């Protein structure tokens, strides 16, 4: 097994995430908002989608060496059909021929200017014109039915479950919505994977790589940017924010000075400079980065780092304000009067009471970070060009849009995947905010009254 830097951090993130969820769910104060969250079908469906993305991303984060000594991930193993079946250049989704004409040398030595057959896509068809439509239809129907059948079986088992409490749980609107959502995801994914053995379901790109594979691989990049950045940002924001608010005085002054300074530098420039720096470092130490994957990984990691450095200030300011409020609370004052050390006060009384702000800002930031990645890639200061990412896909798709006929599938694939992830994240973030923000909780209570 090969553990890349970002892999290690992802494992760390999964571990801390699990611990945090466990500890959060044990806190009495958070029971109510968590329940509210669970009762919201939209939130649960979004969460389901997010978890599915996360699972794919996680599968793509477990790397090992294959027989040919290449570093590949679990996802690569699952996608080996798409990975190995590269064509020469563009081909449309489900196509059997290339998208561009070229000179074909016929058996008798003469040449013809025409669309050549694909090497893999639809290669099993002897006469594409007549067989294609039926083949695609039956193959997708069969695969879809198999996927749907699996889910139906699970659904039937759940329905037949006699346990009263579980029954009630399974009949709740959230559970039904999640089940419906899972049905769709599982059958569609199953269909796409099954068809990928015979066709390029989302076409191929300029060098003939499967676009569906690229879009799948991009999931990890998006998640890493969205999540690891918070891993960098949180310690900075929490430590500085709480300290500034709690100690006030010169500590506050210094911390405010730091974040005003950082804030006032246009973040794009800061990111550009840092990315250049990483490149130079790698150029000067070629022996440490002898592998394309490692180099791309380090760049990704540094992008997360620098995004974290530029984006912690907002949360820091929120936490500072909240801490300023909290430290005037009676119980904090009382604790101080009783001689409890500042450290204990911070951990016992302040930190737990600002956690909801942290949670809200993490989910809110996630989607904007995923979107930012695409924009940064456009100005060439994003992820490494060899990394699969939606930003890189969109970027090359710009050229494809100028072609005639238009090559639309790369852009569409990136759009659909990115949109699904960001939409789910946004919806979930809304639900989290509604559930955890005390002011909003009051509001809804008011309205209910």
């Amino acid at each position, binding site marked *: 097994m090969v553990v890349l830097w970002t892999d290690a951090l992802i494992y760390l993130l999964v571990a801390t995430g699990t611990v945090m969820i466990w500890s959060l769910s044990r806190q009495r104060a958070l029971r109510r908002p968590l329940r509210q969250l669970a009762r919201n079908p939209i939130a649960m469906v979004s969460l389901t989608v997010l978890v599915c993305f996360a699972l794919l991303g996680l599968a793509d984060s477990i790397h090992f060496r294959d027989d040919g000594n290449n570093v590949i991930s679990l996802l690569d193993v699952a996608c080996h059909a798409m990975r190995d079946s590269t064509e020469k250049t563009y081909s449309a989704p489900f196509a059997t021929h290339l998208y561009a004409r070229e000179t074909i040398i016929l058996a008798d030595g003469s040449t013809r200017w025409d669309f050549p057959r694909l090497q893999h896509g639809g290669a099993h068809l002897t006469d594409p014109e007549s067989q294609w439509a039926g083949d695609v239809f039956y193959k997708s129907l069969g695969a879809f039915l198999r996927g749907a059948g699996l889910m139906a079986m699970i659904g039937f088992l759940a329905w037949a479950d006699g346990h009263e409490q579980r029954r009630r749980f399974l009949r709740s609107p959230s559970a039904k919505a999640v089940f419906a959502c899972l049905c769709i995801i599982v059958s569609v994914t199953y269909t796409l994977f099954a068809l990928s053995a015979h066709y390029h379901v989302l076409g191929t790109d300029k060098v003939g790589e499967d676009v569906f594979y690229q879009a799948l691989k991009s999931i990890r990049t998006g998640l890493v940017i969205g999540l690891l950045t918070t891993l960098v940002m949180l310690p900075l924001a929490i430590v500085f924010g709480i300290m500034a608010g709690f100690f006030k005085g010169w500590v506050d002054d210094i911390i405010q*000075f730091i974040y*005003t*300074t950082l*804030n*006032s*530098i*246009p973040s*794009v*420039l*800061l990111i*550009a*400079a*840092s990315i*250049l*720096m990483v490149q*130079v470092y790698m150029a000067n130490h070629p022996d440490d980065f002898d592998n394309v994957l490692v180099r791309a990984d380090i760049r990704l990691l540094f992008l997360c780092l620098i995004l974290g450095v530029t984006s912690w200030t907002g949360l820091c300011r929120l936490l500072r304000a909240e801490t300023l409020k909290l430290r005037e609370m009676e119980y904090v004052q009382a604790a101080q009067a009783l001689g409890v050390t500042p450290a204990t006060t911070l951990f016992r009384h302040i930190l737990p009471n600002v956690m909801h702000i942290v949670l809200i800002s993490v989910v809110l930031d996630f*989607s904007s970070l995923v*979107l930012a990645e*695409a*924009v940064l890639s*456009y*100005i*060439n*200061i994003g992820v490494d060009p060899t990394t699969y990412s*939606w930003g890189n896909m*969109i970027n090359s*798709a*710009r050229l494809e*849009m100028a072609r005639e006929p238009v090559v639309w599938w790369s*852009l569409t694939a990136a*759009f659909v995947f*990115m*949109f699904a992830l*960001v*939409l789910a994240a*946004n*919806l979930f973030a*809304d639900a989290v905010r509604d559930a955890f923000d005390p002011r909003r909780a009051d*509001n809804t209570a*008011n*309205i209910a009254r």
Partner: protein
Amino acid sequence: MITYIIRRLLYAVPLLVAVNVLTFVLFFVVNSPDDMARMQLGQKHVTEQAIQNWKHQHGYDLPLLWNDPQAGAQKLTETIFYQKSAKLFLFDFGISDSGRNIGSDIRQRMWPSLALALPSLLVGLLVNITLALLVVFFRETYVELGAGVICVTLMSISPLFYIIGGQFFIGKLLNLVPISGFGDGFDAWRFLLLPVAISVVAGIGSGVRWYRTLFLEEVEKDYVRTARAKGLSETQALFKHVLQNAMIPILTGVVVVLPLLFMGSLIMESFFSIPGLGSYTIDAINRQDFAIVRSMVFLGSVLYIVGLLLTDISYTLVDPRVRLN
């Protein structure tokens, strides 16, 4: 008030010094002056002597931060850092690494940036506030639900898609506006139409949601309820009380970004080749023209600080209860 402003301005000085040091260190770790010289002198036939000459001409033949052989204060002043940074505080940006006067370039390019950014901001504001008021008006109906869904949808689309799509449909297929470029004087409006429209549309999702929250907070306040109970119609309540009271956060939110409008929009300007400061910055990054990038960083920081100051002042103007001291 005056003393407050002066104090804030003095506070800005150490901030700017810190910004300067930070960027300087960042950039000179990346590239040595030798690299810059080779970059600027072109690719065919560059000799060592030419590099030395270039460095001398542009003042890069000094030590970076500390000049040991010199005496006294010159240890500090006869360095690249001092020579290149001190003048920034007088807004003398000097000569770019490729030999052009940065100050005059900035003066020339800030107007196109402003011509793009200001309409985008104002039209965006108008559209967002109008739509948000509508949504608030129709609260607890299917309109609000639909608007919410649409907003989240719009928010979840990368701005790049709006730009690519807009350029493709409006510019390429429908022939309604020039694909890209910029015109002289008022002729520029034809070029600005599409980018402004796109930035407005791209901003609707988050904008409407944000203003909706602002308005909803006001709507639920007791005085609005009282006003409504006294017989004020819904529309009157919205316009008379809600909008007026929400004006404060709206205004301060606008004021803080006003100065930064000069900096332009990186993506929009380079997509539509509008010769503003945003595309200037991107070009400088790609060409690694450190003099320009450093100037732009400095300018950005100054404008940000001006924005903060303006916000404070505008607070006192719109809300008499706030006193600056």
